[in-house]
């Protein structure tokens, strides 16, 4: 009897314990690069811990393979720790002093707080000669992190074969020309959807259009000017928001240019379909190029990427921006070696070439898909002056305009659905007026504070 009672107590306690421990999920995967045997050879042998969001290349072994070279040259072991929910998990670790030696700097760290967490690399004047976008994680002219890669903020993925079949020989240079291309595809190619909206997953797919906005403006300080000059967000006379979303509205308004039912699109199925030449174009960032090439298999060469077609003074513009930046924990025991590692990872590791992304190192070769950007004016958005740092974002969230969001009350969703319903110009103007007034009201209160 006594045994049974004890057993019952133990069981119930165990159940409580398991219920509680089940809450903490262990979704971090770590891998040790380099063999343990090596560590005995020298007294100075050190281990660097690197926190990263790239669980995919940890699992595929690509990182370890590339890192061998660095480990041998510097007599150290690099231990990668991957997080699937990087931004949230690392934000928690940042509240302690133990957050690895090298880590991707999460965007939730305010620029003014960088010095509290990360060891400085040096002055911006020195680093701007070496790396593009070196000011991404900079405060007070001091650089705290280097970009692991660059992205073309927004562009249009197109199928080269479909464009050729439709008789298009030159890439479009204005929104109207782009719509003309879609019409040519509709008229000349049987069984091809000219523009695929991916609207079922609109909560993120429609936000891809936002990536075109600064490119369309051709103005590196476009978003700062919106704050200082206090113009309307949507202004028919200024290139930017109006240009991009008018193009969206015009395309979505014509049911012959898009798929039959925007509520039943399929993101995963659209990747191979794109490779097979069943889709003409999609608005996506340069990050998507690799994925679509992979899904296209033998047709990978057909995956093309073009900038936002909006010619200003005879020039097409495209904004490039930094991917995650890598920084060094200021509490690390080996700051110098860790910084050496960051420079190696960003510049010499060969990872950028393997992955077909744009390297930040000045002088490094651009990937092949960027050939379409040869005569494009690539620019980096101007860093906001200290007093306006983060202000655009604050206005954006407070007003619930959500320039980068795809919530159900978002202006992009409203525009798309008005277009699907064929409500025409009037509806477009009504929606943008509403956004303008919401934005202006919040901007005035935020700037007044």
């Amino acid at each position, binding site marked *: 009897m006594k045994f049974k009672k004890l057993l019952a107590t133990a069981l119930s306690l165990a159940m409580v314990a398991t219920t509680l421990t089940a809450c903490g999920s262990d979704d971090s995967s770590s891998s040790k690069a380099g063999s343990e045997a090596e560590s005995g050879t020298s007294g100075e042998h050190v281990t660097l811990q690197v926190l990263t969001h790239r669980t995919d290349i940890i699992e595929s072994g690509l990182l370890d393979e590339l890192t061998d070279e660095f480990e041998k040259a510097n007599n150290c072991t690099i231990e990668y720790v991957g997080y699937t929910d990087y931004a949230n998990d690392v934000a928690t670790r940042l509240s302690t002093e133990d957050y690895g030696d090298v880590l991707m700097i999460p965007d939730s760290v305010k620029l003014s707080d960088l010095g509290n967490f990360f060891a400085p690399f040096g002055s911006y004047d020195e680093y701007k000669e070496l790396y593009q976008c070196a000011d991404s994680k900079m405060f007070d002219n001091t650089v705290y992190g280097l970009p692991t890669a660059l992205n073309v903020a927004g562009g249009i993925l197109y199928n080269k074969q479909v464009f050729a079949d439709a008789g298009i020989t030159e890439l479009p240079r204005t929104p109207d020309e782009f719509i003309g291309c879609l019409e040519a595809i509709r008229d000349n190619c049987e069984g091809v*959807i000219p523009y695929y909206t991916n609207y079922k997953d609109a909560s993120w797919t429609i936000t891809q259009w936002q990536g075109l906005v600064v490119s369309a403006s051709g103005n590196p300080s476009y978003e700062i000017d919106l704050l200082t000059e206090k113009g309307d967000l949507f202004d028919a006379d200024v290139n930017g928001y109006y240009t991009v979303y008018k193009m969206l509205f015009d395309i979505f308004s014509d049911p012959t240019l898009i798929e039959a039912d925007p509520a*039943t699109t399929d993101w995963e199925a659209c990747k191979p379909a794109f490779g097979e030449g069943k889709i003409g174009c999609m608005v996506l960032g340069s990050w998507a190029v690799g994925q679509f090439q992979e899904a296209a298999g033998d047709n990978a060469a057909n995956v093309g990427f073009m900038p936002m077609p909006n010619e200003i003074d005879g020039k097409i513009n495209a904004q490039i921006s930094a991917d995650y930046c890598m920084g060094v924990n200021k509490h690390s025991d080996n700051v110098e070696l860790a910084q050496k590692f960051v420079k190696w990872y960003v510049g010499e590791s060969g990872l950028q070439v393997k992955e077909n992304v744009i390297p930040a190192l000045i002088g490094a070769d651009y990937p092949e898909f960027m050939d379409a950007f040869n005569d494009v004016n690539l620019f980096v958005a101007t860093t906001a002056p200290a007093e306006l740092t983060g202000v655009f974002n604050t206005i954006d969230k407070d007003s619930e305009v959500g320039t980068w969001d795809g919530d159900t009350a978002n202006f992009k969703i409203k525009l798309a659905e008005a277009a699907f319903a064929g409500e025409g110009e009037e509806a477009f103007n009504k929606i943008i007026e509403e956004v303008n007034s919401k934005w202006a009201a919040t901007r005035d209160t935020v700037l007044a504070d």
Partner: protein
Amino acid sequence: MQKKKRSFWQWLKTYEGQKILTTILFLLVPVTCLILFTVIPAGNMVLFSFQERDRYGLDAKWVGLENYKTVFSNPDYFMTFKNSIYYLIGSFAQQALALLLASILCSKIKLRNFFKGVLFFPYMMNGVAVSLIFMRFFALGDGIVTQTGTVNTILQQLGMDPVKFLSDPSIANYCLVFISIWRYIGFDIVMYIGAIQSISSDIYEAADLDGANGWQRFRYIVFPSIKPIISLQLILAIKGAVSVFEIPYIITEGKFGTSTFVIKTHETGMVFQKVGLASAMAVVLLIIIIIVTLIQKHFFKESDEDKPSKKKKAQNGEVA
């Protein structure tokens, strides 16, 4: 009355002590979970609703009733309740249909256990699975990347024009309500069957002798007996209608005019990081449900309280 001094351990070995000890041990797990996952978060939510705070809770500010004022004064928030009306009307239809099916299943028809199983099955299915099934069911597709869905294939076979079930704002809500009825009706049927079968067969026999027809039997025997169950079901229906989330969130993401109050709450908290405001919205939802429950209590007070007392009297009478 004997009084003996016993130590705590001795007391624990008595029947009384064993009863309490077992109760505590059995309650330990559920109560811990309840406190940890329901009581504490709900308490925090009420606190947060008086604050202006972001997702990380950095520099939370006390703002008093400001969040509640926003919820009620800004139509962007409160007007999302309008879609609940679709679900509310739908759930009344659902109750009527469930009652009808339950009555049929209680009569002596063939294969009735099989039909019970078929009708109850959707309730056991996961909401995500149900949503995926109906996405296929209602899809229009483009014939190039995505396939034409079930209903539209049939319509086309019959020579009719295909319908944009999910992307036409004027019908999307009806489709979603239909899915919700399909999913939850099994539970209602089982509740009604349980209630109907608990009616003593003596009463039916007496009614037969008096020459009651089917409708009269339902109106004067079945309906009064299952009134408490109907009232409970109506409360659950209203509660369900104001807090719809899963099905529209997965199938349409709340697009095409199918957003609901809970989807809006989710977006306010997660997309715009206004956790204080989102908490206030959740508290408003809670209060609405409490009010509905109180109205129901008041409304059905008589019938609820009458019954047990009458039964008791009857039993006492028998004993006497």
